């Protein structure tokens, strides 16, 4: 049974990749992931806000109240070397690389072009095999057009691509007016893969404290239908690889994603819920299904049911209620 696949130019032993999550903050977990059969690990994200926020915070607190009062011209010593910015993260990449043989994909998360993109170069130097660029912002400026937002995504990608020679994947949200056009723009700008789709913290109201608290909701299998549609549509229309993420909880979910065109399938919620070693169950399910259905290799499966490779391409274009109406007419 050949489970190998290629993703971002990397030869992976299977299509089972662990996506960015707090699990990868712990080196032992990364070892467990390898042990459980993960073919690559996307590390937890280094956030633009975190890098900039920490720099500003450190600067603010080391200068607050200084040079005001003759006896206390400063309140903190000046260390010779700050490891402000990505130092801790870079160290983590280095250690992860030492700890496991599988590829390590570093994740950089931000919303607008800026100095943070140059950390991609540091990632490469620290040994990352590839970079996953996670771009998302919540536009609230009523004067900003969709096009401007889309262009800023492309600009970020270009900045990162200019800084590194290792492959770069772009993780996206589904909220684009024309997903295919957006994918094409990123493809043209050099994206080596698109990762579809991101899940976000959503705000919730705390009725006791009357404050808004961010909530993380883990995905479920039905969530996989959204990426399924778009991967199927994009497969063959762009050069970039495609990675499926969101709602992949079983081996069958993974197989479906491979068949509609994903080069790899990514897991997060499933592992948070069931533990890292749940990956072995998934792999087992895939192998069993392939045996049962006489598939020899994963590569054989990939894209076999993409929009271009199915008899009725419109299946991916219609919305549900249309089907119902059509049925009724007949």
């Amino acid at each position, binding site marked *: 049974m050949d489970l190998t696949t290629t993703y971002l130019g990397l030869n992976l032993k299977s299509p089972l990749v662990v996506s960015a999550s707090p699990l990868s903050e712990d080196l032992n977990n990364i070892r467990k992931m390898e042990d459980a059969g993960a073919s690559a690990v996307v590390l937890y994200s280094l956030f633009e806000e975190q890098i900039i926020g920490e720099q*500003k915070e*450190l600067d603010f607190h080391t200068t607050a109240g200084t040079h005001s009062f*003759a006896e206390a011209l400063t309140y903190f010593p000046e260390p010779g070397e700050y490891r402000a910015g990505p130092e801790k993260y870079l160290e983590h990449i280095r250690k992860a690389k030492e700890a496991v043989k599988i590829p390590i994909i570093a994740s950089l998360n931000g919303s607008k072009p800026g100095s943070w993109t140059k950390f991609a170069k540091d990632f490469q130097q620290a040994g990352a095999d590839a970079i996953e660029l996670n771009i998302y912002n919540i536009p609230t400026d009523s004067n900003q057009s969709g096009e401007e937002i889309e262009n800023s995504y492309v600009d970020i990608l270009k900045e990162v691509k200019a800084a590194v020679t290792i492959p770069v994947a772009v993780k996206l949200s589904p909220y684009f007016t024309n997903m295919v056009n957006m994918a094409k723009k990123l493809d043209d700008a050099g994206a080596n893969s698109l990762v579809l789709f991101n899940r976000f913290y959503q705000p919730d109201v705390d009725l006791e404290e009357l404050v808004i608290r961010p909530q993380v909701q883990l995905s479920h299998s039905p969530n996989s239908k959204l990426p399924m549609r778009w991967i199927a549509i994009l497969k063959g229309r762009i050069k970039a690889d495609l990675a499926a993420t969101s709602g992949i909880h079983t081996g069958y979910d993974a197989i479906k994603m491979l068949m509609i065109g994903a080069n790899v399938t990514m897991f997060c919620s499933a592992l948070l819920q069931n533990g890292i070693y749940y990956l072995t169950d998934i792999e087992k399910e895939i192998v069993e299904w392939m045996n049962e259905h006489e598939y020899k290799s994963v590569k054989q499966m990939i894209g076999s049911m993409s929009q271009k490779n199915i008899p009725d391409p419109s299946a991916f274009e219609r919305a549900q209620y249309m089907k119902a109406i059509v049925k009724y007419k007949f």
Partner: protein
Amino acid sequence: MKDKVYVTIDGNEAAAYVAYRVNEVIAIYPITPSSNMGEWADEWASKGIKNIWGSIPTVCEMQSEGGAAGAVHGSLQAGALTTTFTASQGLLLKIPNMFKIAGELTSTVFNISARTLATHALSIFGDHSDVMAARTTGFAFLAADSVQQVMDFEIIAQASTLESRLPFVHFFDGFRTSHEEMKIELLSEDVMRQMMNAELIEAHRNRALSPDHPVLRGTAQNPDVFFQNRETMNKFYTDCPDIVQKHMDKFAQLTGRQYQLFEYHGAPDADKVIILMASGCEPAHETIDYLLKQGEKVGVLKIRLYRPFDMKRFIAAIPKSVKKIAVLDRTKEPGATGEPVYLDVINAYYEAVSNGWSGITEIPKIVGGRYGLSSKEFTPSMIISVFDNLKLDKPKHNFTVGINDDVYHSSLDYDTELSIESDKVVRAMFYGLGSDGTVGANKNSIKIIGENTDNYAQGYYVYDSKKAGALTVSHLRFGPDKIRSTYLINKANFIACHQTVFLEKYDMLKNIGEGGTFLINSPWSVEEVWNNIPKTTQERIIKKKVKLFTIDAQKVAEASGMGRRLNTVMQVCFFAISGVLPREEAIKAIKDSIVKSYSRKGDEIVNMNLQAVDNSLENLFEVPVPNTVSATFDLSLPVPADSPEFVRNVIGEIIAGRGDELPVSAFPQDGTWPTATAQYERRNIAFEIPVWDEEICIQCGKCFMVCPHATIRAKVYDPALLGNAPGTFKSVEARDKEYAGMKYTLQVAPEDCTGCGVCIEVCPVKNKSNTSLKAINLVPQIPLRESEAKNWEFFLSLPEVDRSNIKLSNIRQQQLQRPLFEFSGACSGCGETPYIKLLTQLFGDHTVIANATGCSSIYGANLPTTPYTKNAEGRGPAWSNSLFEDNAEFGLGYRLAIDKQKDIARQLVNELKSQIGNELAEEILNSPQKDESDIFNQRKRVEKLVEIVSKIGSPESKRLLSVKDYLVKKTVWIVGGDGWAYDIGYGGLDHVIASGKNVNILVLDTEVYSNTGGQASKASPLSAVAKFAMKGKPTNKKDLGMMAMAYGNVYVASVAMGAKDEHTLKAFLEAEAYDGPSIIIAYSHCIAHGIDMTAPLKQQKLAVDSGQWLLYRYNPVLAAQGGNPMSLDSKAPKLPVADYLNTENRFKMLKVSHPEIAKEYFKQTQTFVEDRYKFYDYLANRRFNPEVQEEETK
């Protein structure tokens, strides 16, 4: 010489730079203005910087300067090259060891940034009273004039001490030299190596105590031999001057800079000479050059080696032609026949003439005078006045210069307008706020100029005595020649006003020179600027033909992401219009400097500063100056015109920046100062102030409980009183049922509020229609200033609530008590002051406070104003500060005196019982005075007593009248910070709590030396980064409470108002009620923690919730009743301690500077807090005194 390296540094760094490189052990303790030397040493050691022999010196913080001296003594005895740094009271504490070190002929150099000793008042500034107090120790004393000399003399002193075996005090003037930044030539390590003789170092080591060649020192000697033995070392003192001169000569060969023990500058045939030492020599040198050009025959003799005083070299250095000499001492020795240097000079001449060794036959006319106490200005004009005095037939002796002595008429008149500075010197002054980064920018500017041009550069900074909204004035000079002007600028080419509010407060252009430039940061357009400038300033602009520029720096800074930090913006403007450097070159230099300074902190910081540079120039405009004054307003009065006379004439003048002009007669002779004066200074420093939403307020009292400056208060009162209320005065029905039918008002003092926002943080109410609003909300101050000031005035006129009916355990009622501590100079958002305010609310009218030196003594009593105030009856806290180290003992002294006088009074009441009347006498003697109404009634009884006793007229009755006040309860509160309680004053504190006496101790625990700028104390928690603990404090916080509890009869409480205010209140009430020693350890958040000071209470809550800070009370009264005295009042940790540590920069910094250490320390902290909680929990829940309990159950 091309290979010379120039640096722009201050005197402290210059001293530490060399001292660090030629020593092996350094014992330190913070004290202004010397703290920075220790900080440098600690920083370099932490960074692994090595001394000239390749070893990293061991730097050890001690618990006091006395401790540091002991450690130095020991280290020297054990053979290491050892040094220390200190000043003022710190030097006094070292004196006992200094006698020993000198008596044992031990080589060391003590580096002293000379500072005023506390007498009638404390002063952090510079004079020679400290070094003069140490001059009898047997140390050699070497005085440096300037930053360059500090660096040079440090190595000369180090070399000389090794050879002469005399220990050295190397001193320079506190602040004037220690904090003056100057471009100097850096001493190379190669020169240091050549100066430090290896054989002498070996000899030093061979004298060390070692069991391999044992000897004994420190014997006790008897009358038969001590005297002779003491005379054995004379040779070392006679040899020392030659040795020092030899090393000065060697140094000259190595560097080209030649020094003499006594250095004369002036006419070779001078008839008038002045003699002085340290920084005053520089303007004297400058003035002599000026006077020589005028044809005067004058000179200055600069004393370098003051002890041992080499009389022959001294006499030889002064031209024989001299007829008159003025000796200037920077100290005052009341009761002496003259100040120290004067007496030395007199004696030298007497010896020279009487013994005939000098060829002089007649002693010149010699007069002595005092100058420069507490960094008082010492200018060329004053120096000229000293020469003018010498011109008189009978020159004034025992004179003063620099002040107006209208009482004893000792002072010399001088011309305040005279400036002798060369036109080649660029002189710039910058008025900024501490928080806007002005000083930082100027420090950077002089480095840029120092490093990018051949110009010399000098920077000196004058700071405020307030910590919140502090004014800073920077004085910068640049010029092609060496700058000797060690005084403030009085004729500036450039003045910048970095904050618009200063325009109406200060006479900004008092010091502008003809044709100078004035730059204003203002929100106004070019057209609007002129009419917003006050009359006085407009007049000066027109008269002096001043060029006027403006920029909206706030706007530019905000647009660049810099918030309120205007530093880069204003710096760019300075370079753009001052012409110190070509504009393009200057901009490039600023940008290079930004990249260099901020890269460490990250690109984002670099980018926002670079952005600010680019944005500045396009927003800088020249303002056309009209020919006529058009202002309709002038500078504001410093205090209201109807303030009390002393406030108007003295305090107001100090506030206005005219304190230098006040004469001697203006001041009380013994340092006594009135309380209740802060109310007259309307600082108007808040951008935003809280405004009350009376509709939704639940009247809980929390906002005014936490207000650090007592600027938000509430009253309940009779509705009838609202008749004359201003139209915008708010009031609602009081919610408390016990005040039914009364009105309630929450009012802010708009001109005193600092705008910290802590009241908003604590407010528990949210507006139901808009949850971003609370029952108090911050709004811009300016539009409300006038109306709210009227409301505040009306509010103050309303009667206070009847204290005798207040339920003290109920915060909403207790907080109606008037604070007797208000509008202090503490930092915005201060965590200490709410505790002091609470103390004064509860007990202020019968409390005497002993206050340790530190933040609380500074915001409590730094002139001009005093925050402790009085109630309507004129009662309030009486307050004093003795020292840093003796506060507990000082407070105990209060107790002893009060108790003694109470005993005398009671005895006299007994004796006079028949005349007083039995009933009244018994009531007075037996009143328990446990609560407010008891105390109130006792006061009434004493009034009655006075009425009766006044008529008796016997000696006993008169004695009783002199002590009658002690029949009414007096409480002693001993207040101070953790530096005092845990470190320097711990021995005394321990003794005082062991005494069993009824004193209350309040430890304002910020877990760091806050006042001196954040050095670690034994209260600092594990992992906290502080100065002297750059790699994080490696040990756990000392458990002071546990140590106090060990006595069993001490009331102990650990509180955190921000975590549980009721608990804090309870602890204060119990401590006061306990008839014995009480100690409250109060968690005080602090700017030195690196936290958001607008929401600091959440830090206290996190500290308690994570177990980092415990809440408990240990009440011996309960033990006496057979119960468990220990009550643990905080719950088991419910958060990982990292959740707290990660919110404070003092801990987080370690994660970015030393991640591995941080990881380990955070882990250890978690274990520590868990174990400690278990232990306290055990103490609180164990069966205490089981026998008694069992007995009771039966």
